[in-house]
């Protein structure tokens, strides 16, 4: 059972990293729009983060698959496929020459991702707690705890 808790805590940190990366990119894009940053710097900063973010998301998705968390796996899968597609078409990086033309679309994508990771974060936090609870209470209630079977989706 301890393993389960460790797993969820790991997920929590991965999700937090993804969330903050997206948030950071969003801030940079807003700065670019407001002319606080020049396009060269902002694109290089964002492009530096994009591939690690994709890899991390892939890992995140794979973790759910290997730990047999079907629901979360299916939730994270579309984004993973989308990222892989972008990467394959070499469209994942922001093009500095056309950055202003793509600005609003890129912002929108990141906003959606932000919401998505926020949602995941809540789920993961919840699971961390349940895992922790179960660990804590398992000596007392054992398998009878209704929460454990109910929340094991």
């Amino acid at each position, binding site marked *: 059972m301890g393993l389960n808790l460790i797993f969820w805590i790991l997920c929590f940190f991965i999700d937090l990293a993804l969330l903050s990366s997206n948030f950071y990119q969003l801030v940079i894009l807003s700065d*670019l729009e407001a*002319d606080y940053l020049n*396009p*060269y710097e902002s694109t290089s900063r964002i492009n530096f983060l994009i591939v690690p973010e994709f890899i991390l998301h892939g890992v995140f998705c794979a973790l759910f698959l290997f730990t047999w968390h079907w629901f979360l796996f299916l939730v994270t899968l579309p984004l993973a496929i989308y990222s892989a597609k972008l990467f394959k078409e*070499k469209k994942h990086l922001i093009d*500095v*020459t056309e950055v*202003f*033309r793509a*600005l609003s679309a890129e912002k929108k994508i990141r906003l959606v991702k932000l919401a998505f990771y926020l949602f995941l974060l809540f789920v993961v936090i919840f699971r961390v707690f349940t895992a922790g609870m179960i660990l804590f209470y398992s000596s007392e209630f054992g398998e009878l705890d209704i929460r454990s079977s109910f929340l094991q989706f």
Partner: protein
Amino acid sequence: MTPFQSSGPVVGSDTPGLRPTAPSAPQSTTPFSSSGPVVGSESPGFRPVPPVAPQTYIPEASGFRPAPPARFNDPSVPPPPTSYAPPNAGPLPRFPTAQLSSTQPPPSRAPFVGQPPFQPPPAQVPPPQLPLRPQQQMPLVPMGSPPQNVNYVPASTNVAQSPSDSSFPAPRPNFQPSFPGYVRQQSSADSQAPPIHSPFPTKQGGAPFQTTASSPLVAHQGGYVAPPFGFQSRDHMQHPSSGPPVGAIQSLVEDFNSLSVGGSIPGSIEPGVDLKALPRPLDGDVEPKLFSETYPLNCGPRFLRLTTSGIPSSQSLASRWHLPLGAVVCPLAESPDGDEVPVINFASSGIIRCRRCRTYVNPYVTFTDSGRKWRCNMCSLLNDVPGDYFAHLDATGKRVDLDKRPELTRGSVEFVAPTEYMIRPPMPPLYFFLIDVSVSAVRSGMIEVVAKTIRSCLDKLPGYPRTQIGFATYDSTLHFYNLKADIFYSSSFISFNLDILLAYCLANKTAKINNHSSLTQPQMLVVSDLDDIFVPLPDDLLVNLSESRSVVETFLDSLPSMFQDNLNLESAFGPALKAAFMLMRQLGGKLLIFQNTLPSLGIGRLKLRGDDQRVYGTDKEHALRLPEDPFYKQMAAEFTKFQIGVNVYAFSDKYTDIASLGTLAKYTGGEVNFYPNFHSAIHGEKLRHELARDLTRETAWEAVLRIRVGKGLRFTSYHGSFMLRSTDLLALPAVDCDKAFAMQLSLEEALLTTQTVYFQVALLYTASCGERRIRVLTAAAPVVTDLGDMYRLADTGAIVTLLSRLAIEKTLSSKLEDARNSLQLRIVKALKEYRTLYAVQHRLAGRIIYPESLKFLLLYGLALFKSTPVRGGYADVTLDERCAAGFTMMTLPVKKLLKLLYPNLIRVDEHLLKPSAHDDLTSIEKRLPLSAASLDSRGLYILDDGFRFIIWFGRVLSPDIAMNLLGPEFAADLSKVILSEHDNEMSRKLMRVINRLREKDSLYYHLCQLVRQGEQPREGILFLSNLVEDPIGGSNGYVEWVLQIHRQIQQNP
């Protein structure tokens, strides 16, 4: 303020060229021309005429307030053809009868803004004085029409006139019969108006000249209202004295034009459009005069053109305007002599700008508080006037020193920028040449032409004595040239070389040094390590031209011979580019690339992805037109960052991937010049001219451009060759007079509260002389609340420019087919919207209607459809040519673009045969419609699209002419013949004509290409594909195109 109140006869787009028909009957001329001022003037000028009882034409004419009678003889007023009368008069007695059955609606119309209600008094209808009554009537109607707003004569009203009603019906309160467009249409049609068939089976004999006083007006109006019936009577044509019924035929109510389409006309053959009736821009581009006359303080249209000078007042109105809403800016447009942009130096007071919105002081700011404050016209903030700039106000509130302040009286000025506007000292003009010396470059003779041209331009390079220059050549290795003329090097020559060698050995690079024996000779340094590029002697490769002049000259003289035996096939373009970047990084400047083959070595090498036919029509098609390797985009971005502008000259006969190479120019404000299959003997002169112009034209260095617009509006997208540095700042490392930028506008607020919107373009740049300057262009445009006004104030040239740029951009993200479809959809939507404005009231079913201001939109749309970047598919244009044309069209100013889209076609054989020695060019200035019907196989024609002349020899052109012009080669294969002057009058004459045409348009050198009729497939590719009105290879002809558009407009939304 009502913008449309400017007075003066604005002869819109009508110029005499359109109407070649000569006036032959003075009687008809006078009345007709009295309507002149109305012609094309959508507007203003005319006040409702007080009831005058005109007895002759003169009084009528004098009814026009603003224009003295003399005006009416203005040559620009189209003289009506004699034949004009019959069509009008013919049906007169008949027509009312036909209309009698219609009901009599109360003809009162809502009064229009700013219009005093007008009641045409019966007195206005003059007693018949001349047999040509109907014409006499014509001016009358417009006279009474204050064309201030969209007023139209509803068909029903006219129909309501009883034929027996002997006078202009009095009971018409507020009725403003606004016929200006109508009249205009008429006049514009008279040269083109076709014999159109009338549905009325009238068999009117010689009636026209004997119409009674009572009927003409009615009938006349009826004629115009007739559109639903397609009133164009064939009988008139049949009338012995009528001749071709030019004019009068086109129905038109108000300020729109219409064309009858469809086969509803009895006896007419499909297609129901008469080709000759369709409007053609045979006068080239006509700048919208109304706009500049309403706001005389605006900068000239050569600098800034709005797609419509009526800015929509609300978002909902803007959304009904389906054409692009925006502007085309050509900030450095060449000024004609005597109209130069004044340079102003605010030495002590600093540049006057609004504190809040940073608008520069301009003619539209107002001074208040006895001259101590000024109000910004953009954000209406009150700013203090600096002490040094203070001047008292006179009684009218104007500054007393107004005449000494060009910035307050002119829309285009230049300010000298103080140090706050510099991040570094102004850079010297810098030219760096990167020349491909691989075997194909040597064989084509390109190197020689380039070297000679540069050498001949050394004196004319701008910025003497600060100009810097440098050269590098490359094949499979990079060659740099030490051009430093320094006494130190010559005295310690050997040690210098040793140093270099040592340095190279230390750096562990493979390098060799060719030094020539003479001391003034340049030294060549060769770098063959392409993976890790380094620049030897970074300080000596870029030299000051005035100091090293003799070395540079020696180098250029020896350059062609240096590589004449080079057999190297490779091209290390990418590494050479990187090296050039490293050299220029310190200063910026202009990089000229001469590329002859596909880059094959090192970073940035390109594959022969070629023109794969199978890719066309799939989703991957557009990728062919995009740079293949991200290296090019990265380099372009880096170049812009360091103020380097790139011009690409490409020469290959094989695939060179212009899509990738051109990217370098696209994002650095440069241009792409493509010479497919270059041979110095044929194309040498063209390259010489264009390179010389590139080197010697006035260039603005390290520039940024920003366009400001009043509150509530925002420029959202920019189209052209530049890179955006922030949301609204265009970075232009090197920009010149031949570059235009387009931008689109959107409304940020739902409703605009102001009456006028101001635009201000500011270009901050370093002039070649080393001065930092700001060019400020200011313009005002009225806010309108009516869609009709937007259409009326539309500028076809600007719209077409924006549409073409949008279409080309679309080809970069989707299929050609999609780009064409979206273009067509836009045109259809716009005309459909216009139709809903007018057609319902006027029952114009079966006619295509369009605003007067957009009468050429359909044709230019078709030309755009057939333009090189957009047309056809795989087989129609090679990929490289398509891309190169796309890059060029993205930078061209309005006038040049329109000429490229609809080239000039002129017939010259008659001129050549004329015995007169003097060069009267008027006879060849008549442009012909671009259709095979204009061609006579006995003729000699020149097609001039601004880039080349295609000289077409008719099949049965007299052999005499051909022999004289071509000399002994007249029977040879024309593709190999180069037009040159022969020793006879005719040939000299032709050359004079050609040179004259070239002078008029000096941006590109017009290369002469000769083609003979029937010489396939060359004729088809070169010449016939330019005849945009003809159906070629599955594409639409003009008539089919109009019909197709019309069908789509008719389809229910």
